């Protein structure tokens, strides 16, 4: 394939760069103001600036994990799956160093059917929204109003799912209710009311959450534990995935283009390298995101060490900002790249302002709290992603305010709602339940990817059927 480019910069095309610089200046000004108010707000700024870094790279590489699985099935393009694997490999290597340095605050996810089911619902919805949780944020930064609707839907659906009771309680097995009741939780949380509390305390808490090294009893040998986690949960699966992606999706076209009829092993290896570098932007973004995500873990760990805290809630309490804290004086503060929970907090904060009781549950009441969005540290990471993507899109003259059609708006809201429901059932999205887990020795992330892939496969089938049905209904001979 040859590619000719005749991109014609319009007169005055520096306008986008100036606007990007204005966004950057706003970020710097906000940081100075925050530090002037209280230097401890620097904890939030660490999240925000890493978010800006993620946003810049996500937009630069058109890096969306939805595309990683969806485009394989929809158009047989492995570009994004390759980029994702590069990011996983590098994040795992940086995480290994951070863990050995003693700065990792990673907690493994519980392994169970809920991961597979939640991920499948998430993956199905993701095909219709056009982006994963992070992808929707960076596309919002490109001016895509449909992606903004996805964020709204993810936020409110999660907030509603974790607080829903009444009819939903009838779906809960009696064993979950009994197990939840036995956990001796504070009475105000009402853990035997509300399906999500009973699912969490009566089912998920009873499951095993562990890294591979802990399963193998290597906790007493920190270096060996990190090597085993990194090698067997990230590096080897990544290499196997790259070989499979090459063999199934890239090899036929590559051999045809290179006019190779009887390939040697060396030519196949050259083919794998060609696949990894086929999209320079995606590969560079994947590498950058992997390193940045690892550095983020280190930076948050260093901040916690500096302030002598384990959770940002302790700093908020010291600042006298207690209203958003959970019963344990905590707020959601993962210490690494994560997306969905802070969006659930945004939704819950709005609903609480409207008078809906939101704290009589484990998710908000015991663990994550509902901080004011101005004091929501991971929330500023999400805002940072939007801002970083906007900067990159503006500087490349790719920013454009795009209003969705009625069809796209409905897809965004319904798909986003499914993503929110799936993320809560699986206890995370493609970032928190996959990207952050497999890079830290927790194999449950691969189960999430399997479920997300299965859901996306069904989603692509349903989406294709929809497109074809629309075409046949209109009598369009081209199916368009």
């Amino acid at each position, binding site marked *: 394939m040859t590619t000719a480019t005749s991109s014609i910069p319009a007169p005055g095309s520096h306008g986008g760069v100036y606007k990007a610089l204005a966004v950057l200046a706003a970020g710097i000004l906000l940081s100075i103001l925050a530090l002037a108010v209280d230097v401890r707000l620097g904890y939030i700024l660490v999240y925000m600036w890493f978010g800006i870094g993620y946003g810049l790279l996500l937009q630069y590489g058109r890096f969306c994990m939805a595309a990683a699985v969806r485009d394989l099935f929809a158009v047989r393009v492995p570009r994004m799956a390759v980029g994702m694997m590069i990011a996983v490999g590098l994040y795992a290597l940086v995480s290994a160093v951070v863990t050995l340095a003693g700065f990792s605050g990673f907690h493994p996810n519980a392994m169970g059917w809920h991961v597979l089911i939640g991920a499948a619902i998430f993956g199905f919805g993701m095909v219709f929204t056009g982006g994963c949780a992070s992808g929707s944020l960076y596309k919002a930064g490109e001016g895509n109003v449909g992606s903004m609707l996805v964020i709204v839907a993810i936020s409110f659906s999660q907030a509603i799912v974790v607080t829903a009771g009444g009819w939903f309680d009838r779906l809960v097995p009696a064993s979950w209710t009994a197990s939840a009741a036995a956990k001796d939780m504070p009475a105000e949380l009402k853990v035997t009311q509300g399906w999500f509390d009973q699912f969490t305390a009566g089912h998920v808490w009873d499951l095993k959450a562990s890294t591979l090294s802990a399963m193998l009893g290597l906790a007493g040998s920190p270096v060996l534990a990190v090597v085993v986690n990194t090698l067997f949960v990230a590096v080897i699966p990544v290499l196997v995935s790259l070989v499979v992606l090459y063999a199934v999706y890239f090899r036929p076209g590559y051999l*045809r283009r290179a006019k190779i009829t009887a390939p040697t092993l060396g030519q196949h290896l050259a083919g794998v390298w060609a696949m990894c570098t086929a999209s320079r932007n995606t590969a560079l973004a994947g590498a950058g995101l992997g390193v940045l995500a690892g550095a983020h873990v280190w930076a948050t760990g260093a901040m916690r060490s500096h302030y002598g805290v384990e959770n940002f809630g302790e700093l908020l309490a010291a600042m006298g900002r207690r209203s958003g804290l959970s019963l344990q004086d905590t707020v959601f503060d993962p210490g690494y790249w994560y997306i969905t929970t802070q969006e659930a907090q945004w939704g819950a904060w709005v609903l609480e302002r409207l008078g809906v009781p939101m704290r009589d549950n484990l998710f908000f009441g015991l663990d994550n709290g509902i901080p004011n969005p101005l004091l929501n540290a991971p929330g500023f990471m999400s805002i940072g992603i939007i801002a970083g993507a906007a900067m990159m899109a503006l500087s490349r003259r790719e920013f454009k305010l795009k209003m969705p059609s009625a069809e796209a708006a409905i897809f965004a809201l319904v798909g986003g709602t499914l993503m929110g429901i799936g993320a809560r059932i699986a206890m995370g999205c493609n970032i928190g339940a996959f990207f952050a887990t497999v890079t830290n020795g927790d194999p449950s992330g691969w189960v999430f990817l399997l479920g997300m892939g299965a859901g996306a496969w069904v989603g692509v089938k349903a989406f294709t059927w929809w*497109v074809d049905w629309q075409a046949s209904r209109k009598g369009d001979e*081209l199916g368009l």
Partner: protein
Amino acid sequence: MAVSFNQTTDGKWTLDVRGYACPHPQMYTKKALQKLGSGDELKLVFDNPSSGESIIAMCEADGNDIVDRVEGDGSFTWTIRKT
């Protein structure tokens, strides 16, 4: 806003998918290219940047040529020649 696909002259086609995010642009492009004959050209207009990377990879895999790219102000106009 709807997707439009038209034959402008003999062997020349236009597909306009502005206003649509992933996966619409790449899926419609794949569908449109399947309708074209060898040597035909497709003028593709889209405004979802991330679709571009997938469309490049798709053309690469299928052996189609992107012979012209005009980009700016959030819109992309590419000409793809089917081999």
